[in-house]
């Protein structure tokens, strides 16, 4: 990116700040089974008149198409922000149909799921070009140093777009949000359980601050 492009980008950011843009398109990203759709469903339940974003499953890559919900108004910290949220398929660098067969799927079902999952990852990547910010959902019981996390964070930093890390599954005793914070100390982090709703109010406050 050259000097002129940087100037334009910086000018655009200042314009947004001056006019306090209060509508943002936010993507929910993360590895498969981190709890993206569970969180998307909770946000929709809390801030709209009902419905869900998608189904939740223990089998990885349950979400294989990005789903967008428009016009969610989140009120927190005495202000409100209008969000379009995009629940994206889980990002991965490898997809082997045999892994799905371990969950009891037939070979035909597993192959179909694998094919759709590869398309889903491509779709999730394409969405990166069309977002104002990202909620990066991590499973707090897992090692945070995955390449998917590194790549999503690197891309948001390169695009100078806001990123909020969500350490999910704190309802599980083995969860360790501190491990995630130690891995990516340069970004804000909120610990929640999308499943039982623990601390989601703090997440909404953080969304109102970071994505304005």
């Amino acid at each position, binding site marked *: 990116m050259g000097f002129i492009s940087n100037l334009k980008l910086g000018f655009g950011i200042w314009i947004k700040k001056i006019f306090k843009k209060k509508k943002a398109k936010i993507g929910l990203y993360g590895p498969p089974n981190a709890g993206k759709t569970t969180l998307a469903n909770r946000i929709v339940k809390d801030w709209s008149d009902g419905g869900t974003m998608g189904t939740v499953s223990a089998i990885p890559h349950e979400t294989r198409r990005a789903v967008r919900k428009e016009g969610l108004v989140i009120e927190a910290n005495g202000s409100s922000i209008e969000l379009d949220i995009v629940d994206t398929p889980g990002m991965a*660098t490898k997809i082997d149909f045999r892994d799905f067969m371990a969950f009891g799927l037939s070979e035909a079902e597993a192959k179909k799921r694998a094919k759709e999952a590869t398309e889903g990852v491509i779709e999730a990547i394409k969405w990166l070009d069309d977002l104002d910010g990202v909620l990066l959902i991590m499973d707090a019981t897992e090692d945070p140093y995955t390449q998917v996390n590194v790549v999503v964070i690197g891309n948001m930093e390169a695009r100078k777009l806001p990123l909020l890390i969500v350490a999910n599954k704190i309802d599980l005793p083995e969860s360790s949000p501190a491990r995630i914070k130690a891995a990516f100390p340069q970004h804000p982090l909120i610990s929640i359980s999308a499943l039982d709703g623990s601390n989601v109010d703090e997440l909404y406050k953080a969304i109102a601050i970071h994505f304005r």
Partner: protein
Amino acid sequence: MDLISGEKLDRLTSMEKIRLILDKVKTGRIVVLESGLTPQEEVRLIEMTMAEIRLDEFSGIEIESYPAKKGGSFLDKILGKKVKGRMTVIGPANQLRTIEKDQYQISTKVSIGD
């Protein structure tokens, strides 16, 4: 295993780097990049990997690098200089497995003849 120097990577375009890596990995080679890829190149590599997955032949890649260092100097940012990637290891998903990784060390296991 191929160790590719930073000088060679600097001479290639993004697409040439990605094509070079995928062609090597699809034939079972492990590739170590001295200076790594930019975040944008890494995400394009994942995208192209997904497009080239074949059910019984190629199930994808294992790729590991360290989290990016915090951006360069103020002058670098003004001049639009990219933050360089860090040493990266890439291999076929069925042969290269990451055992442990932190900010300073990546431990991997390579299987031969899988």
